[in-house]
């Protein structure tokens, strides 16, 4: 008898501009100890389906049109709020996507951890506290007793996700809904979290509903699967059935989006370097007493004209700091930076201005890198006017051509950033970066927070732009799979030091460093490519 | 769920509001009447209690309860009565006064009140280093002015001698009929030497002697408690020589700067007497509650002074035009609620029977003619000038009304300048004004307290007015006349000159107005608004 039985569940949203069919009649079952994965792009309704089962979707505007959800013999959709609350967090609990925002910043980890325990079980604070320490150790957090009293912002992304998982498990639920639990994490950390989930699932014989947009992640852990598009399951079956012969073309499109192509070797003859960095040191003052934090520790590198150099490392390895220092958004503590032969380490802001036109940057978070109160037109027009690339009268033409070159429709030029999807915003950011026809671009994890299919499109766009405007690019990322698709040479960085460098082929096939090997193993979906 | 929690908190809040207010318990005024405790609204906060330093009227009400001079004033007749001095006799030439003190006069610490106490107190009051702003009132005493100006520094030359422990002899510069009245002003009150000198030199203004716990007094009441800006409580002084005849057990004075707040306190039964009454409330009380409001003439005149040194006010015709174009009757009936007497001269009528001259009346046509004669036909070319007054509700109303009258009758435009108190005083001191509001309350009941202001270069003469004949009459001839009628005739002639020159525009004679609880007795209204605390008593009304 399956733990959870969902039969043709449909949830519609009645908004001012018409009815949105978020979930349109889906049915599936979850067995104990098994993982049921739901795959679909953002906006496909996969989260709404799971949340509506537990009454977490605000009604109105949402409304459960039809369907039955059987759990422990009861139909969750007909339960009263009070009874449903008995199940929420006890029978079924949820792990959310972004660990940065799903923990209450104003309460200690311990308080938040024991809260569901004290709510659902009649046990004393002391007992609950001990249980909390146990569960923290189980999810792999060292000296758990001490960490119980520290605050969420004192944890790294991966550690916080472990706390969220502990919070879901502490009440020993029968079913866990994991809503894209690893999307916001680094690849290496993602691998550890997935391994942890697998172990806990088998040990406690829990049924897991795993929601994701990334096929390669799901490939490793799913037993049963379903591909969801516009509220409906377009395909459903075991993992092997779906991966070996996908029926629906949407599923095929998803499979094709997984980057496993390796960029062919290109000989880069030019001796003369565009960017040279010699023994660069960047230190940040830590709070009193301890030694200053060495973000970048004696790094030297050089980038040849229209080459794409991949800079890979985990978050906190100093790769973004290095990137920002090269285009002088940060002042290095010591060392030299030369751009096109000119030493720009100690230039003043005024002296840097002409050079600013030569080098641009694209950021990771499409939601934060565009001014929310500036229409796209102004965002693109600003660099054009600032560096007098075009005169006022043919400004409109230039802006429209930029829109074309990044593949956005001209009509949307007068709209605001919040009216675009993540992928489209990144296109705008790229448009802004190439507006001044720079020679050198730094892309700081440009695709990390995008869906896999969108990632592929953006990477193709970047490659095309590098060709068309023969740009030189420093591509920073934590995901070796993505870098492999794009870069000519790769540098691997760990705790502020360069540990490995070489061509794409060398690094992927015969890595010299143990750390690089670790990174390679962490790439999800190995089973797919081999 | 969340909603009813909110409702619950709001309900609790309103409960608190209702719960704590009991019914109307017995009012403070009724309790006071029963226990003989008077609750007295006293106007602005009292600055201090040292008779030789303080100056204001609020201080007067308290110091007269705590201390006692040689004479005191009968509240009904305003005649001088024996106080610390049992009796006195005056020489024929009116120059020498001999006072016989009471043997049983005592300070609150038991020391007897001696003639030396008075002599030393006169010396302290006149010592220049003390900076006593009222010392000019003792100048009638021989050589007092010279000592006060530092010309002589040996007080023996001043006309105040101790004959023996209970006899004091005072000799005057010139015969001064009103001298006895001066002695009941607190400038002439004795202070206890040892107490003063225990807290620093006798010329220290900054001293702790005149405070609760330290002060030693010889009056009918003694100081019990003083919380600044809250209240001052004095209780019957049992060691006072006339203690049995004191009817009140205690008086509590309250600082009531805000007229409106004071009126509300009165209505809430917290005060037996208020210091003032808001103009707008006067007609209400006159109509609904006449026996609670008392309006009485007051020895003071409300007038505007003109800066005759400034064009075009140096021309007497302009001044006359301004004076005649004010309809005082209308002003009184409307703005002043009909309770003030229009005045056409400086000295209030009926001051000891003296009647001032009345030279002009409200005559807008003649005023317009005079103005035209002076070169400003119906106001053309007349410069805009400023009418200065200090920030106070009634001054504002009067100024606005007069501004309108000048505008309508003479066609001249006036801008009102409302200055904060100290700035206003500063403007007057430096004669930096066109026309300015001014009020003067007599220090004693005699025309001289008004007329001696406008002698040439007189300290209080800020108008630039100067007339030899006038000076001769007021300073020279009048003081020499022993007979009151002759003296008044000379004053009449002097005031006539003043009213012809018109450096000042008299507007109305002051009236004191205050609200009184029916139980407040023994305080007849008199033109000095003087309360003699030995006469005041409270009668519990049934």
């Amino acid at each position: 008898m399956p733990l959870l039985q969902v039969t043709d569940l449909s949830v519609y949203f009645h908004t001012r501009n018409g009815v949105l069919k978020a979930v349109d009649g889906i049915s599936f079952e979850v067995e104990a100890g098994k993982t049921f994965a739901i795959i679909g792009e953002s906006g496909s309704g996969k989260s709404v389906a799971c949340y509506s089962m537990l009454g977490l979707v605000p009604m109105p505007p949402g409304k459960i049109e039809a369907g039955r959800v059987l759990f422990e013999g009861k139909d969750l959709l007909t339960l009263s709020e009070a009874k449903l609350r008995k199940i929420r967090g006890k029978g079924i609990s949820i792990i959310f996507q972004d660990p940065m925002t799903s923990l209450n910043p104003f309460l200690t980890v311990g308080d938040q951890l024991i809260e569901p325990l004290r709510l659902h079980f009649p046990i004393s604070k002391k007992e609950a506290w001990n249980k909390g320490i146990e569960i923290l150790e189980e999810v792999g957090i060292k000296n758990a007793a001490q960490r119980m009293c520290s605050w969420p912002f004192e944890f790294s992304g991966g550690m916080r996700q472990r706390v969220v998982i502990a919070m879901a498990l502490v009440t020993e639920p029968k079913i866990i809904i994991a809503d894209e639990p690893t999307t916001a994490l680094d690849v290496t950390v993602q691998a550890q979290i997935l391994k942890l989930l697998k172990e806990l699932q088998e040990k406690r014989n829990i049924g897991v509903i795993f929601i994701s947009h990334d096929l390669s992640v799901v490939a490793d852990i799913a037993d049963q699967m379903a591909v969801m598009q516009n509220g409906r399951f377009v395909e459903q079956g075991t993992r092997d059935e779906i991966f070996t012969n996908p029926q629906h073309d949407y599923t095929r499109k998803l499979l094709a989006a997984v980057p496993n192509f390796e960029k062919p070797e290109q000989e880069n003859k030019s001796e003369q370097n565009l960017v040279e960095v010699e023994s660069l040191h960047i230190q940040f003052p830590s709070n009193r007493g301890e030694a200053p934090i060495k973000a970048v520790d004696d790094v030297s590198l050089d980038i040849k004209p229209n080459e794409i150099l991949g800079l890979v490392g985990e978050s906190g390895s100093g790769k973004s700091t290095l990137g920002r220092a090269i285009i002088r958004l940060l002042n290095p503590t010591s060392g030299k930076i030369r751009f096109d032969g000119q030493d720009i380490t100690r230039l003043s802001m005024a002296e840097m201005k002409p050079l600013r036109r030569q080098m641009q940057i694209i950021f990771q978070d499409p939601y934060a890198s565009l001014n929310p109160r500036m229409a796209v037109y102004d965002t693109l027009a600003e660099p054009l006017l600032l560096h007098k690339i075009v005169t006022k009268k043919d400004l409109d033409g230039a802006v429209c051509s930029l829109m074309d070159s990044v593949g956005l429709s001209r009509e949307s030029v007068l709209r605001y950033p919040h009216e675009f999807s993540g992928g489209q915003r990144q296109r705008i950011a790229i448009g802004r970066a190439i507006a001044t026809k720079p020679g050198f671009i730094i892309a700081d994890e440009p695709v990390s927070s995008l869906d896999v299919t969108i990632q592929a499109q953006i990477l193709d766009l970047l490659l095309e732009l590098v060709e068309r405007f023969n740009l030189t690019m420093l591509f920073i990322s934590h995901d070796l799979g993505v870098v492999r698709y794009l870069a000519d040479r790769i540098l691997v960085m760990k705790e502020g030091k360069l540990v490995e460098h070489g061509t794409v082929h060398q690094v992927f096939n015969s890595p010299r460093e143990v750390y690089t090997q670790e990174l390679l193993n962490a790439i999800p979906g190995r089973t797919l490519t081999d | 769920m969340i909603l009813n929690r909110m409702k619950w908190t709001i309900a609790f809040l309103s409960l608190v509001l209702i719960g704590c207010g009991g019914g109307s318990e017995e009012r403070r005024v009724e309790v006071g009447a029963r226990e003989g405790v008077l609750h007295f609204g006293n106007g602005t906060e009292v600055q201090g209690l040292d008779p030789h330093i303080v100056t204001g009227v609020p201080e007067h009400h308290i110091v007269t309860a705590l201390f006692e001079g040689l004479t005191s004033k009968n509240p009904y007749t305003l005649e001088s009565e024996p106080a610390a001095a049992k009796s006195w006799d005056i020489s024929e030439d009116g120059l020498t006064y001999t006072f016989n003190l009471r043997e049983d006069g005592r300070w609150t610490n038991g020391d007897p009140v001696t003639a030396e106490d008075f002599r030393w107190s006169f010396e302290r009051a006149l010592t220049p280093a003390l900076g006593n702003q009222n010392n000019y009132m003792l100048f009638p005493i021989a050589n007092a002015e010279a000592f006060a100006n530092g010309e002589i520094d040996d007080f023996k030359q001043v006309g105040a001698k101790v004959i023996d422990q209970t006899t004091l002899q005072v000799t005057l510069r010139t015969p001064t009929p009103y001298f006895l009245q001066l002695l009941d002003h607190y400038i002439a009150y004795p202070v206890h030497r040892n107490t003063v000198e225990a807290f620093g030199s006798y010329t220290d203004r900054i001293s702790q002697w005149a405070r609760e716990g330290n002060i030693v007094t010889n009056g009918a009441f003694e100081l019990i408690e003083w919380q600044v800006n809250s209240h001052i409580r004095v209780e019957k002084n049992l060691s006072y020589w006339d203690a049995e005849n004191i009817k009140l057990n205690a008086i509590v004075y309250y600082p009531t700067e805000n007229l409106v707040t004071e009126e509300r306190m009165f209505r809430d039964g917290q005060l037996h007497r208020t210091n003032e009454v808001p103009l707008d409330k006067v007609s209400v009380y006159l109509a609904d509650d006449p026996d609670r409001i008392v309006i009485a003439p007051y020895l003071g005149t409300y007038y505007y002074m003109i800066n005759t040194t400034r064009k075009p006010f140096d021309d007497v015709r302009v001044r006359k035009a301004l004076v005649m174009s004010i309809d005082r009757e209308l002003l009184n009936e409307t703005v002043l609620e009909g309770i003030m007497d229009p005045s056409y001269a400086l000295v209030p009528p009926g001051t000891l029977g003296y009647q001032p001259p009345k030279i002009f009346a409200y005559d807008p046509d003649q005023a317009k003619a005079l103005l035209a004669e002076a070169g400003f036909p119906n106001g053309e070319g007349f410069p805009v000038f400023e009418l200065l007054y200090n920030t106070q509700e009634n001054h504002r109303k009067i100024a606005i009304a007069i501004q309108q009258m000048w505008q309508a009758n003479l066609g001249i435009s006036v801008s009102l300048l409302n200055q904060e108190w100290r700035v206003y005083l500063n403007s007057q001191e430096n004669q930096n004004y066109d026309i300015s509001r001014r009020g003067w309350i007599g220090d004693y009941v005699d025309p001289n307290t008004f007329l001696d202001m406008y002698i040439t270069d007189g300290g209080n003469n800020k108008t630039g007015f100067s007339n030899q004949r006038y000076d001769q009459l007021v300073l020279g001839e009048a003081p020499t006349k022993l007979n009151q009628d002759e003296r008044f005739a000379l004053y009449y002639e002097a005031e006539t000159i003043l009213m012809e020159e018109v450096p000042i525009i008299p507007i109305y004679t002051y009236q004191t107005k205050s609200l009184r609880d029916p139980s407040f007795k023994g305080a007849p209204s008199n033109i000095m608004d003087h309360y003699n605390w030995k006469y005041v008593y409270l009668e519990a009304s049934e």
Partner: protein
Amino acid sequence: MWRFIAVRTLQAIPVILTVITVTFFLVRAAPGGPFSSEKAVSDQVKAALEEQYRLDLPAYEQYFAYMVDLFRGDFGPSFNFPSRSVNELIFQGLPITLELGLYAMLIAVLIGVVAGVCAALKPNTLQDYIPMSLSMIGICMPSFLLGPVLVLVFGIWLDWVPISGWGNSAGDKLLPSITLGAMYAAYIARLSRSGMLEVLSQDYLRTARAKGLPEYIVIIKHALRGGLLPVVAYIGPAFAGLLSGSFVVETVFQIPGLGRFYVQAAFNRDYTMILGTTVFLASLIVVFNLLSDILSAWINPRLRYQFRK
């Protein structure tokens, strides 16, 4: 934490010193001195007065003499009340004004937060418009209007509550506190509404609901802490503004607080009193800003993290 407090107090010293110096000379620049009087005063008397209060010395000498006394904690004699020292008057007035301010702020926070949270729970509905419009009344009705109206209605017509005095009869502290607190309640209502709206859209509330917590615990335990941060940041500086604001309430209700001294001193050019109250006002501002920062840090641990830097 203590290091942060030490740094802030060190920073405060130059602030207070500058305030004293500026006020010292500003006051003397205002026309009309402490001894200008309606009756003419002879020059000898004026000279004696100035000599007693050291006003005859050149300004900078007066300044140094004053500062020397100040460091000994002596604020000098009051010009307006010769037998009283400024220290004594302040120590009599300050506790009363602080107490009034505390009650006023308590009422303001109570009413303001309740109204703000109510409004935030259902934005743009009646439950939002009613509390917000009522709070607007607090802004439109100044204390010199609200006070007399309350006195008239509750004091005289209904006679529930005494209308003047402080502490000498039961319930006489209620009306003045409401009058003073009304305006602050309006500000706090608006601040807590926008603060709560901001927090209610956060993910961690969804996590809390997912744990099966009932709605009101989600609001009180999780949302309120974050939502009230702007209110806490506002209370600090606002509390210091109470001193001058309390003048009107103290006059209407006959309360012997520092507010009244403060304004009386200004009108009477009581230099030492002005300086004394200003020094206390300046230190009040520093103290309450510090308190509100500490309270914010207590609520928001991330701020606490900055303290250690």
